[in-house]
């Protein structure tokens, strides 16, 4: 609490601890940034700006780079090198290497044992910690909020601001409590929670807000599950989503490379335990979902808000009272080539993608592998499994998960963003349907003309085996 005893939210505590200057009538707040993550796609123009103005990177020791978006995930060649076929991507990666070298920023290059998706490696290395401010030129920076950090995506101009000054101009957002109460059923996961939240509030429902995910269903999630939930905050319009740190958080962090140790660990723990929202603190908005009422979720349309329980029927535009929403739904169904009232269960699919900053961590791969073990991917389906980082890949291989995927007929690939963003060679062909564990089903997101159903790793694995959209609970119960 503050000196005057006014209860504060987790967000307010982190915000207040980082304001170099408070917001005034004339200027936004100036926020200090504890950690800046950079990657090859949204940084080149920022580095050019620094060069044009003769500026240095103020705190390279608070900055870290990794290659992830435009990198191929094709298996290594006989020399152990991941080949880059695309000359523009190669130039962008070379530019990134040069920029990080010139400005003294540590960076994990393609194929390095620590390289991976920026939002996978931050937590993995213990760089992501409770109470920090973290930014990256990537909207899924919200992932790091799972640790009780205030983490959000920024544009390239702002990347330049942080590189040069370690600060950002920000107007203070509002807060929304997102309560998820009760216990998840078998076959229902963190991904289903966040898809249900976004289906409820809509893709713009959180605009101007920071979410705080609360309630016993959230407390019951692993850190990786919490990251999946926070990751997609932006798909509900919120730049950031946070979960108060607790013993689950501390247990995950303890012993990681950049986590504090010894007496520093004890001091950090004492500090972190002060972060959770005080009893009686007010949020600007609040919504509540019942976890025990959730079943696996799937999207049917062209934004992540167009989601439904997997056994539901595709909604009909004629039932939509709002004209703009009716037009949008009609356009989406036309792109997806789906009919109103149609069931998605049993809909044949072409591709299954397990990966992305939403669902490429070891627990995601374990879930999918456990499901797929002893089964075969349908002949008509291409299944790609793309670990989020080289460390995740190594751990999965140590556990033999890659052999399970390969034996089932799936591809086991190198770490990167892969088919989530389709700017690296991994993409759908026009007209193909995919069940994807990624975060966006926008038109063309996974390749021009491609059609995406967003779902959990379990639903993706079940669908790969069936060759069609499938409810993982059906197979889980038949196995029991």
């Amino acid at each position, binding site marked *: 609490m503050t000196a005057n005893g006014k209860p504060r939210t987790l967000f307010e505590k982190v915000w207040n601890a980082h304001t170099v200057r408070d917001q005034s009538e004339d200027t936004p707040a*100036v926020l200090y940034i504890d950690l800046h993550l950079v990657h090859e796609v949204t940084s080149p123009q920022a580095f050019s700006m620094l060069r044009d103005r003769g500026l240095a990177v103020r705190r390279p020791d608070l900055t870290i780079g990794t290659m992830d978006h435009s990198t191929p995930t094709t298996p290594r060649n006989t020399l152990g090198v991941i080949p880059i076929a695309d000359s523009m991507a190669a130039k962008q990666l070379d530019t990134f290497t040069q920029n990080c070298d010139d400005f003294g920023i540590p960076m994990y290059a393609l194929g390095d044992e620590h390289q991976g998706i920026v939002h996978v490696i931050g937590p993995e290395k213990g760089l992501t910690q409770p109470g920090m401010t973290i930014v990256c030129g990537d909207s899924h920076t919200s992932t790091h909020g799972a640790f009780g950090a205030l983490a959000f995506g920024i544009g390239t101009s702002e990347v330049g601001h942080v590189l040069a000054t370690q600060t950002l101009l920000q107007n203070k957002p509002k807060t929304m409590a997102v309560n998820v109460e009760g216990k998840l059923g078998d076959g229902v996961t963190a991904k289903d929670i966040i898809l249900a939240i976004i289906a409820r509030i809509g893709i713009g429902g959180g605009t101007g807000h920071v979410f705080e995910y609360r309630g016993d269903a959230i407390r019951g999630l692993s850190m990786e599950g919490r990251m999946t939930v926070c990751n997609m905050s*932006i798909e509900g319009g919120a730049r950031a989503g946070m979960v108060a740190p607790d013993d689950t958080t501390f247990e995950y962090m303890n012993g990681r490379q950049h986590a504090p140790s010894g007496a520093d660990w004890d001091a950090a723990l004492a500090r972190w335990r002060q972060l959770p929202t005080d009893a009686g603190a007010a949020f600007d908005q609040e919504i509540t979902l019942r976890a025990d009422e959730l079943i696996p979720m799937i999207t049917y349309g062209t934004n992540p808000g167009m989601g439904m329980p997997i056994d539901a029927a595709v909604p009909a535009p004629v039932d939509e009272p709002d004209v*703009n929403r009716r037009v949008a739904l009609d356009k989406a169904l036309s792109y997806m080539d789906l009919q109103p009232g149609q069931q998605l269960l049993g809909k044949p699919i072409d591709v299954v993608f397990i990966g992305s900053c939403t669902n490429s961590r070891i627990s995601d791969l374990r879930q999918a592998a456990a499901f797929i073990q002893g089964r075969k991917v349908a002949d008509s389906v291409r299944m790609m499994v793309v670990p989020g980082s080289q460390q995740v890949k190594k751990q999965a291989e140590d556990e033999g998960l890659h052999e399970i995927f390969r034996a089932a007929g799936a591809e086991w690939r190198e770490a990167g963003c892969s088919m989530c963003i389709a700017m690296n060679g991994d993409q759908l062909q026009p007209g193909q349907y995919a069940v994807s564990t990624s975060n966006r089903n926008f038109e063309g997101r996974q390749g021009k003309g491609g059609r995406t159903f967003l779902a959990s790793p379990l639903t993706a694995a079940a669908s790969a085996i069936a060759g069609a959209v499938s409810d993982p609970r059906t197979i889980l119960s038949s196995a029991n």
Partner: protein
Amino acid sequence: MEKLNHIQGMIVAIPVNDIDTDQIIPARFLKVTDKAGLGKAAFCDWRYQDDGVTPNPDFVLNKSEYQGASVLIAGNNFGCGSSREHAPWALIGAGFKGVISTEFADIFRNNALKNGLLPIEVDAETQEQLVSLADEDPSTTVRVDVERQTLTLPDGRDVKFPLDGFSKYCLLNGVDQLGYLLNLHDDVRDFEAQNPQRVRTTA
């Protein structure tokens, strides 16, 4: 950044809700290392046929009567999704100086303002009126006054739009925000002295 005091220009409407930044500029165009040339890829997958080069004659930006439009009227919640600043760069490259919607995604709004592209947030009624006007008479023009924060419709009606004071100052004076932050060097140094470093990436 160039000064922006007024916009006087033709309008064109893409009345689609939730236009995400992947539609404004698809990811395959993000392999660039500068900002040049993105204008021709704006709305690429709506604007061109499957070969990626032949204009789609039904798409409004390809119609001869809308050439030269500088104010885009969009559906609700414009610019959601990816944080790519390539979106405003592409819109500016395609000749736009302002976008009108009932709501803008947070990151897009920030990115647009830093590049002199004005997000003009209006009520649904005004938005609908503008969509109809653009449809009925492609020569329709609007006037935007940044200082007064007004959009003047063809019938002379002024509609106020929100704009934070600092962004307004930067637009009117053609200055970017980095200069302001650089001038706070001493404040940042003091903050760093009082707050221990959380991590050291170079360690």
